[in-house]
Each structure stands twice: as structure tokens, then as C-alpha cells.
């Protein structure tokens, strides 16, 4: 039994999480733990179940079995999204899901929704408390936009930002919820080399600010170069969990990615 008094080095601990879609076993018996302050990578071929795991962690899917402990509290994998958001799990999406017709600033301001409270009464009366809160929301959102490096006017509509900016805006919006765990679904997808490098620095800086980072990424080089530890999923099963150096030469991982015959050029890329 865990008690909140004891400091647990693990921020997130999954045990036996499973999810089926009809006859397809998307995740089977996944157990892993993520330590506080880590950058933890989740890799695996397409359809390995990485995004499904994210959806369970954020409450968009309900797990069929298993449970997880987050920040000393146990969850049964069938929680409502806002409960987990409140607990401090924030995420971005593989296919960017911004509020496209709202400004960059407003997108981040919506992210503050969770940590603010004024409702219809405040909206109608515009009382002092509401105005102060609104002012704080704007300030916080501006700080975060600058932090992730969006230097365009903050009134730009989200849909008019460049692709890389949209990805960073999504991170800023997730940060606005004051997460303990930031889960990023392929943040580097479609980015050029410079943008990827900037993203890496951003993630290191986020970790330095005390937020644990969980990362799904297809860019193996990026993951192995950034993460403290990496788990590899294949067909819904965890086939490896280790530090990057060990993952690089894990035979099961190489087989999952490349098939049984490791003598093709892409193998060299993983090795490099």
C-alpha cells in the first residue's frame, strides 16, 4: 500500500494494462514504470499500441484490465479524462488537434481551464475575482508561448501557424494545465533538422523545470539521443525496456523493427 507521505521515486507505474478492440489485442499486459524527472521514450513499429497506451493514460480509452499508479494515487484505467488531467497528465496528439479557429493565445488560455474556476456567474458579472483570474490566465499563456518559442503575434489564428509552431503550440497548451507528466505523441514528426534540434532543447528545458516527459517517437535517433530510458512495444507487448545504449543492440528490438535479417542499410542507421 502506498501512502502519500512516502516519496515515491516512480511518478507513473503501469501494471498489467490491457486493451482489446474486438479480436485485436492492442495492448496486452503492459507493465512499466516512469521515474520522476525522466525523459522516457516509447517506441515501436506502426500499430504497436503506443497511441492506445496514451489514450488510456489520458482517459480517452478505457482499459479492459490492469491499473496504474500516478503520483501516489491508484487509477483503474477507466477514469474520465478530466480526472487524469486534474491529476497532472497532459498530452499532445499525433495528428495535431489545436483549436484551429482560435488564436495561439486563446489555445493556451483554454489550457488554463483546468486550473481556473470562474463560471457563468463570473462571466455575466465580470466581478473583481474574475477579472484578476482572467488577467493571470493571459499572463501565464503569454509566458508559455514565449517559452516554447512562438514569436509571432499571439493573436495569430492557430491554423495560420507553421507546422512546427503548431506542434510547439500544442506543447504550450499542454503545459498550461500544470502537468506532472507531459505525454508527447510524435512531437518531431514532419519537422526538419533545425526544428527537431530546437524541440530537443525545449524538451530538456521542460524536464529541467521538473516535469517528467513521456515520448512516443518514430525518429529512433531522436529518441535514443534524448531519453533516459526507452520501452519498445511490438504488437501490443512490451518487448524491451532499458537505457538507450542497451536498446540499440537488443536483438528482440532489431527483429521487431527490421525483421529477422539485420543485414540491411536501416540497421546501420540504428547502430550509428
Amino acid at each position, binding site marked *: 500500500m502506498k501512502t502519500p507521505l512516502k516519496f515515491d521515486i516512480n511518478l507513473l507505474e503501469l501494471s498489467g494494462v490491457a486493451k482489446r478492440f474486438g479480436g485485436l489485442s492492442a495492448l496486452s499486459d503492459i507493465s512499466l514504470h516512469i521515474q520522476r524527472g525522466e525523459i522516457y521514450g516509447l517506441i515501436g513499429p506502426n500499430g504497436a499500441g503506443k497511441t492506445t497506451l496514451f489514450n488510456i493514460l489520458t482517459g480517452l480509452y478505457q482499459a479492459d484490465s490492469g491499473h496504474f499508479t500516478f503520483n501516489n494515487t491508484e487509477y483503474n484505467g477507466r477514469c474520465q479524462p478530466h480526472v487524469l488531467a486534474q491529476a497532472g497528465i497532459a498530452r499532445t496528439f499525433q495528428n495535431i488537434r489545436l483549436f484551429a479557429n482560435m488564436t495561439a493565445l486563446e489555445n493556451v488560455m483554454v489550457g488554463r481551464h483546468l486550473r481556473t474556476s*470562474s463560471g457563468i456567474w463570473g462571466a455575466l458579472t465580470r466581478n473583481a475575482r474574475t477579472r484578476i483570474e482572467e488577467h493571470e490566465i493571459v499572463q501565464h499563456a503569454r509566458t508559455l508561448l514565449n517559452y516554447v518559442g512562438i514569436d509571432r503575434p499571439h493573436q495569430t489564428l492557430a491554423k495560420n501557424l507553421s507546422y512546427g509552431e503548431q506542434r510547439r503550440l500544442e506543447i504550450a497548451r499542454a503545459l498550461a494545465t500544470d502537468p506532472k507528466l507531459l505525454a508527447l505523441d510524435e512531437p518531431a514528426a514532419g519537422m526538419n533538422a533545425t526544428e527537431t534540434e530546437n524541440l530537443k532543447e525545449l524538451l530538456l528545458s521542460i524536464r529541467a523545470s521538473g516535469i517528467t516527459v513521456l515520448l512516443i517517437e518514430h525518429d529512433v535517433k531522436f529518441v535514443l539521443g534524448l531519453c533516459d530510458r526507452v520501452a519498445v512495444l511490438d504488437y501490443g507487448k512490451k518487448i524491451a525496456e532499458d537505457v538507450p545504449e542497451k536498446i540499440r543492440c537488443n536483438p528482440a528490438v532489431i527483429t521487431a523493427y527490421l525483421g529477422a535479417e539485420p543485414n540491411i542499410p536501416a540497421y546501420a542507421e540504428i547502430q550509428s
Partner: protein
Amino acid sequence: MDILLQQIINGFVQGSVYAMVALGYTMVYGILGLINFAHGEVVMIGAMVAMSVIQLLISSGLPPLLILLISLIISIMVCMALGYSIERIAYRPLRKAPRLAPLITAIGVSIVLQNLAMIFWGRAYHAFPSLLPNNSHMLSGAIITEVQILIVLVALGMMGSLLLLMHRTRLGRAMRAVAENPSAAILMGVNINGVIAITFMLGSALAAVAGMMVSANYGIVHYYMGSILGLKAFTAAVLGGIGNMRGAMVGGLLLGLIESLGAGYIGDLSGGFLGSHYQDVFAFFVLISVLVFRPSGLLGERVAERA
């Protein structure tokens, strides 16, 4: 008398009513992708309730403006409760159903409300008690009544406040976020069901006010009044671009003007063959034209068919 100016004034007054009702259609469509065909009946119930409250209070000796205010508040509250109940009972269970199901349900709710109103208030045309002095002003050859001035002012005020609510408050941002992307909004801790309920309640409050306006303007209340008014407001919402709030306001005012000018000049244009009682034709001509030539409406953007 200046016919052109007169028709523009009439059109503007009628248009502000359309705009208020159109907002209810467009807000619900923006969030749920559902056309709430029962919305016109909410307008009718709003007018009926206001009429009944006024009739109750008219002999009490209270000042007319106070009676008006009380009946307005009661009518708004009844309509908000009605809007909430419609969503809760008729639409929420069908949230994940194919979109035809809630559409048919909406028509069903509309028929139920109409018949309930008929049972409760009867089939007769009721006179809407006139509380405000029926003074009118001449405006370079055209007549505008004080009731009409009040209608336009209240409508503009309410629409302005609604835009402020949507763009300047935490609640409004949450509502827009849900309309844009529900699955992302839910992760920001936005209570989707709460936002949807508030959307229905706000739309219904506007409908209640619109119902009072239209009956105060024409002096008549009838259980069937919501149906044609609802269709025209829906047309206005489509004209402006359904789902777009500014579009609903522009579309409402524009439709009022088109209708009024059309009715004013159709006699001259057709050589006396068609009279002003054909004014309803214009709204539906506009509806068909928009759907054929610019389905996204004036301010709407081209969006892929929503699932």
C-alpha cells in the same frame, strides 16, 4: 411616406428578431452539428409564458415596465429550463447515434411542444397585451414605433454581450474550444456536457427574448407562430454560414431586409399580380439559393462534412 426607408426600418426590426433566433440554431450546430428544429417552439413558448405572466400581473397595479421586466425574466427562466430539458431528454441519449436520429427527434420535439402549447393555451390567436405606450416617431417620411426602437436596441445589446461572452471569458473560450475540437477540450478539463447544456440554455434565453419581441411588435401570440419563425431563423443561420455566430447576426438582419424590401416591392415588380402576402417566398428563395450556390453561407468557411 417614404416606402424604401419604411421597409428598411421594418426589415431591420424583423431582422434583429431573426438574428436572435438564428443564434440559437447556429450555436447548437457549432457544438453538436445538430439542427435543433425545436428551437422555433422555444420562441413560441417564450412568447406564451410572457403573455400569461403579463395577464396575471396587469391588474396588480405594478408599473408597466416592471411587469414587462418580470415577465421577461420568468419567460427567460422557463425557456432556459425548457432548452436544458430538451437537450437532456431528447438529444443527449442520441449523442453517439447517426445524425439522422437526432434530426428526426428534433422534429418530434417540435411537434410535441406545439401540441402541448395548443392544449395549454388553446388554438385561438391571443392578443399580446401592449404595456408600452404605442408612440411612434417620424423619421424623414418613415414611421418607427418606440417598441421597434426598443426591439432593435435590446437585440443589438444582447448580441454584443453574447460576442463578448464568447470571446472575452473563460466560459466562452471553453464553448468555442468544444465546438472546435471536443477531444482536445476534454483534456483541458472542459466539462463537455456542461458546455452543451449552457449552449442550449443561452440559445433558449435569446429565443425567449425574441419571442417577446415578435409578439410585442405584432401584438399577436399563437401556438403555431414558432414554426415559420423558426424556419426563417434557420434560413438566416444558413445564409450567414451555420455554426458561425457573426454569420447568424448578419444573416438575420439581411434576411429581414430582403424579406421586407421584397414584400414592399413585389406588387410593383409583378404589376400587381403578386401581393405582399407573398413575403414568405423570399426567405425560402434565399434558403434555396444559398444551399445551391454557396452552401457554406456568407461568413462560413468551407468545411468537410462533419461526422
